[in-house]
């Protein structure tokens, strides 16, 4: 659970995002939004509804379908005094922005010997289960996590979403912010007061003793669901949410596993060469002498996400699957 005390209201994840943007745009006139159908439409997910009415089309800017074009424009704008928040509707479309983000945004500060900086945010989505098929369901955040110069945020609650997004907007580096499309309607407590959450600090979403689940974004709910089921059979699971894959709060993760001696890492991206690989390798290295058994991984099945509902459902980790795995790991199968 978060350590903040002032919890006043329940709002949705989408509202948390919108509030973060509105507050930062009020605070700093250099903050603007660029993306497809972000203005009057407020995005297809309606996450930005109302912003153009408050800030006008000079700051909430509809673009052509030019992901590379407006992302790259955002890089140049960030270098020269603007703080753009670039909206990439589906995370699958980051494929079109890799040159801008990786060869430009991530490297400019370093290549210029620290003389230019790129304070921009890319907001995009991840996650399957919407029956959107292979080109609208990917979780490709592992790619950006692999690239020095970028920071990568994966909020799992409205509280985290708001605090992390405000921090990202104020940040001096390019930050990629991944939102699970399936989470937009999820509600949670969010203080009305201004707050930010630093990048690189994990959050223990549930304390436990017997096994650690390290889970990101959408998978935090899966982990919490499994923890509930496990509690019923007397197994106490700890759920650690890194919140950012880079910087990565290694210490919180490793300490949890040292305490519980068992770990499952979960992430909605593909397992292979993905986030679960890094987390598992980290734990296996740094908690080596405390582990009771191998670290286990759960991620998307290594297939393009199928359209057909029964097939799609089979590709994603579920609380039930995690429950069964954890029960077995704790010797209760």
């Amino acid at each position, binding site marked *: 659970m978060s350590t903040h005390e002032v919890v006043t209201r329940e709002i949705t994840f989408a509202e948390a995002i919108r509030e973060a943007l509105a507050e930062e745009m009020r605070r700093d006139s250099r903050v603007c939004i660029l993306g*497809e*159908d972000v*203005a*009057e*439409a407020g995005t*297809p997910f309606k996450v930005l509804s109302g912003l153009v009415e408050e800030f006008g089309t000079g700051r909430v800017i*509809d*673009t*052509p*379908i*030019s*992901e*590379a*074009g407006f992302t790259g424009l955002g890089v140049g704008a960030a270098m020269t005094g603007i703080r753009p928040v670039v909206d990439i509707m589906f995370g*699958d*479309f980051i494929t*079109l922005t890799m040159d801008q983000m990786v060869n430009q945004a991530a490297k400019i500060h370093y290549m210029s010997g620290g003389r230019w900086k790129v304070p921009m945010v890319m907001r995009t989505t991840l996650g399957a289960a*919407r*029956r*959107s*098929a*292979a*080109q*609208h369901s990917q979780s490709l955040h592992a790619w950006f996590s692999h690239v020095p110069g970028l920071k990568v945020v994966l909020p799992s609650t409205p509280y985290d979403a708001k605090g992390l997004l405000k921090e990202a907007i104020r940040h001096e580096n390019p930050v990629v912010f991944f939102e699970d499309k399936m989470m937009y309607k999820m509600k949670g407590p969010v203080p009305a007061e201004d707050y930010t959450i630093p990048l690189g600090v994990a959050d223990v979403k549930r304390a436990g003793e017997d096994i650690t689940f390290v889970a990101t974004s959408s998978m935090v709910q899966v982990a919490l669901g499994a923890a509930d089921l496990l509690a019923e059979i007397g197994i106490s699971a700890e759920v650690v949410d890194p919140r950012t894959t880079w910087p990565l709060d290694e210490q919180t993760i490793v300490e949890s596993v040292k305490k519980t001696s068992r770990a499952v890492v979960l992430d909605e991206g593909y397992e292979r060469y993905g986030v679960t690989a890094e987390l598992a390798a980290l734990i296996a290295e740094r908690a080596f002498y405390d582990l009771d058994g191998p670290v286990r991984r759960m991620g998307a*099945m*290594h*297939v*393009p996400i*199928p*359209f*057909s*509902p*029964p*097939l799609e459902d*089979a*590709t994603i980790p579920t609380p039930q699957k995690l429950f069964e795995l954890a029960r077995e790991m704790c010797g209760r199968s």
Partner: protein
Amino acid sequence: MSTVSSRTETASHADVELWIRMYRQMTAIRLFEERVNELYTRALMPGLAHLYIGEEAVAVGVCEALRREDYITSTHRGHGHCLAKGASPDRMFAELLGKAAGYCKGKGGSMHIADPSTGNLGANAIVAGSVPIATGAAFSSKYLGNGRVAACFFGEGALGQGVVYEEMNLAQLWKLPVIYVCENNLYTEYTHVSETLAGDILARAKSVGMAAETVDGQNVRAVHEAAAKLVERARAGEGPSFLCCNTYRFHGHHVGDINREYYRSKREEQDWKKERDPLAVHAAWLVAQKHADAAQLEQIEAEVKAEIAKAVEFAINAPYPNQEEVDRDVYA
């Protein structure tokens, strides 16, 4: 704009057959899409779908100018292209419902229907994603000397994507047999074209030296005549071309886009539906020219309706793929 030559007086039997067939094909698309909307509304279809209603003359006009072995590539709004190129509604509906009998075993869904047997290289959910693919198919045709032509459908929104210009340059440099068919329906999702495209659409193709023209996309004969000429040109080795079809989608961006007044007026929609419905335009012409009478057209509609109903029935009753299908077809 090309205008339709008036061949009325001298219309051959084949011409009339073609015009009637085009009417039937447009009707099939219209009725297919209406059932898609209904399946969505009745919560029988997983996910969303982008209806082609209002734009039928484009797909039909172009595809009737192609041979079966010619290629097309399609978009998120792809049912019309797929039907026009010859796919059957039953396997299409099955695909839309995620059933094993679908063209792609249910793995692709609405936005990815593909069918090698009719030369359909696939719908594509990446805006402009199929433009390189069509160009590559044209490259193959030229390389293999097999005389095939590729028609590449995309919305005007795709002109925001740089890769389109890369492909047009390549196609023109290498004189590839590809026709870029731009469906300018005035909107990219919820944004008017005037906010997303500067300058002139045709000039973009012409700047690489490509033949380019605009046609009334609500007039199937106009589309067909223009397309036939460009296809012939491509087949003769004279290179690529660009055909801008001015059209309009009568419904929302997708089936769930119901309240549209914040981005376009009801009035605008009504005007298009009333004045420029491609089916009505063509039907009126057929009747006026005495190529068909009202009864004949109603008969066609009834036949198509029955076929579509059967297709929906088939799809609803078809089984989902087995779970073991999930990790098959990842690699050939």
